[in-house]
């Protein structure tokens, strides 16, 4: 009996019991589709998170006040001293302290209501320096960004995000208009290019003002020197870890801290952010893949069950085939092929369903689903293997039947 004949016989047997075979295949199909989708969702989320974090800018280190080494919250400065100040940012910008840092942009962020005519809109007002544009990888669509002189002179100028401009004026062509922020009039000198949302913060809904203006005009008081974040851009990706060392040492010296574990600031790299953000998704993906794998196991047991039924039902056929000269291995191979056809059918259909769902789901869930060729090929192979593995026992039982007993079976 050749392989083609065995395949043809197996296929005929599967088709003879259409409904039964379909239900068995369904068990495998669902498992395979689930595996492809969970792996795809995991990869897609990872891609999304990476894209979001790299939309902050490239080769970035992010310095935040407070220590993250405590599990019980943030280590603040003593008394009224703030832990991260404009002076820190300027020290980090020095080529002597940090030769591997290309540019520095401190950010002082407050949530304030902006008014234009009788419209008002509450958004994030970011006080920063002109380097911000490069470091955060942003561009100005209309008008200009403010200059270092304007920062020094505490000029009342503002660059709006496109979303903010639309909310206030209904258009992004707003250069020359006036916006009132905390009772002070600011002239709009530019509008940023759209960048899209990053996680839960909308990068397009922002108002950028010179850092000194933000400190004196908008905040004032004791926290005027404090900044909420300092973005450091390394010269290149290779210099990121050197820049990290230098920035940490500079800040430790500046703050008079000798023990690095007592640092009152935190330096994060983008990679660290990506891995923190994806760690959760990875756990979730592993969990979901585990559940999908379980459903494959159940599907495999379904194959075994149906194959055992098939062997029992066809005892006489097995007896006859043996009487006509089928050796045990031919019988075993025939039932293995049948189980393999069920598994492979489930695998191919499941892969097809997974691929289709991967096209539909992003529209419904808003997350990317990345279907990798390896995952598809892998799961089809796994489905075939499940069919074969769970077919071994029924096939062996069939092969072991004694021809006389099998022929006499009712």
């Amino acid at each position, binding site marked *: 009996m050749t392989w083609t004949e065995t395949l043809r016989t197996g296929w005929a047997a599967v088709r003879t019991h259409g409904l039964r075979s379909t239900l068995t295949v369904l068990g495998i199909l669902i498992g395979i589709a689930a595996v492809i989708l969970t792996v795809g969702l995991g990869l897609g989320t990872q891609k999304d998170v990476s894209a979001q974090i790299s939309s902050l800018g490239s080769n970035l280190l992010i310095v935040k006040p407070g220590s993250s080494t405590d599990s019980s919250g943030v280590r603040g400065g003593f008394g009224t001293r703030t832990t991260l100040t404009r002076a820190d940012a300027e020290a980090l910008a020095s080529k002597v302290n940090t030769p591997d840092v290309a540019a520095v942009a401190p950010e002082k962020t407050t949530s304030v209501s902006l008014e234009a005519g009788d419209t008002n809109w509450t958004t994030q007002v970011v006080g920063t320096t002109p380097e911000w544009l490069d470091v955060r990888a942003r561009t100005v669509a209309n008008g200009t960004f403010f200059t270092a002189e304007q920062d020094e002179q505490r000029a009342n100028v503002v660059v709006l995000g496109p979303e903010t401009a639309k909310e206030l004026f209904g258009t992004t062509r707003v250069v020359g208009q006036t916006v009132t922020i905390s009772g002070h009039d600011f002239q709009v000198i530019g509008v940023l290019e759209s960048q899209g949302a990053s996680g839960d913060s909308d990068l397009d809904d922002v108002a950028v003002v010179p850092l000194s203006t933000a400190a004196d005009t908008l905040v004032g008081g004791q926290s005027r020197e404090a900044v909420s974040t300092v973005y450091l851009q390394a010269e290149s990706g290779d210099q990121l870890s050197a820049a990290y060392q230098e920035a940490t040492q500079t800040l430790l010296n500046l703050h008079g801290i000798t023990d690095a574990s007592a640092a009152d600031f935190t330096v994060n790299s983008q990679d660290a952010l990506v891995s923190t953000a994806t760690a959760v998704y990875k756990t979730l993906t592993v969990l979901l893949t585990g559940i999908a794998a379980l459903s494959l196991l159940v599907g495999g047991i379904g194959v075994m069950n149906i194959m055992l039924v098939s062997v029992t039902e066809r005892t006489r056929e097995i007896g*006859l085939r043996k009487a*006509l*000269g089928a*050796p045990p*291995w031919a019988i075993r191979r025939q039932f293995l092929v049948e189980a393999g056809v069920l598994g492979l059918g489930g695998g191919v259909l499941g892969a097809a369903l997974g691929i289709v769902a991967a096209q539909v789901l992003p529209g419904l869930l808003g997350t990317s689903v990345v279907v990798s060729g390896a995952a598809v090929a892998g799961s089809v192979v796994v489905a075939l293997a499940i069919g074969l593995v769970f077919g071994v026992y029924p096939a062996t039982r069939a092969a072991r039947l004694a021809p006389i007993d099998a*022929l006499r079976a009712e």
Partner: protein
Amino acid sequence: MAEPVIDLAGVRKTYRTGSIEFEALRGVDLRIDAGEYVAVMGPSGSGKSTLMNILGCLDTLTAGSYRLAGEDVGELDEIDLADIRNRRIGFVFQQFHLLPSLSSLRNVELPLMYGRVHGAERRARAIAALERVGLGDRLDNRPGELSGGQQQRAAVARALVGEPALLLADEPTGNLDTASSDDVLRLFDELHAQGRTIVLITHEREVAERAQRVVRVRDGLVVEDRAVAA
């Protein structure tokens, strides 16, 4: 002198169920030459079925020796027995045992499939066998679309297709009406006339009388072995 098709010497077969032993054959000597048409008769429990299983290489011997067309089959394992069945023996069963999902042509091709005969040759031989039994116009019909007599003739075609040394028929008329029985038995007569070796197991006297020689089995022994008057 030519090699006999069947040569049984001192064949014993013991079945064991738990601690109980049952001796189904208690020393059978039987020699059947090529071209003979032999009927094996006996009441149920006589060891007739056991003898048939032994002759058909479906079961192994407990003691004694069995030479089938010159080959000692007493010592063979399961795989070699399957091969012997395929090459040497054509079975005809009481319940026909045709596979219902296959056409009569595919049913008849089955032994050749296991005998590694492929393609056009296999098809041609199967068609020839079906034509031989008068079913040349029923190649694509499934067993369900054939009458009982036609089904049994298809089964005979399947038994013949491998050109076996021995045609072994177990109650071939047991499930047939008189007309169909006659039909099948006439086919056996023709095959006998062409020189086939046929062993027919039956409990019906009139069926047995069609043969050339009758062997009676009782209590695991051959009790009578006589030629039938022509």
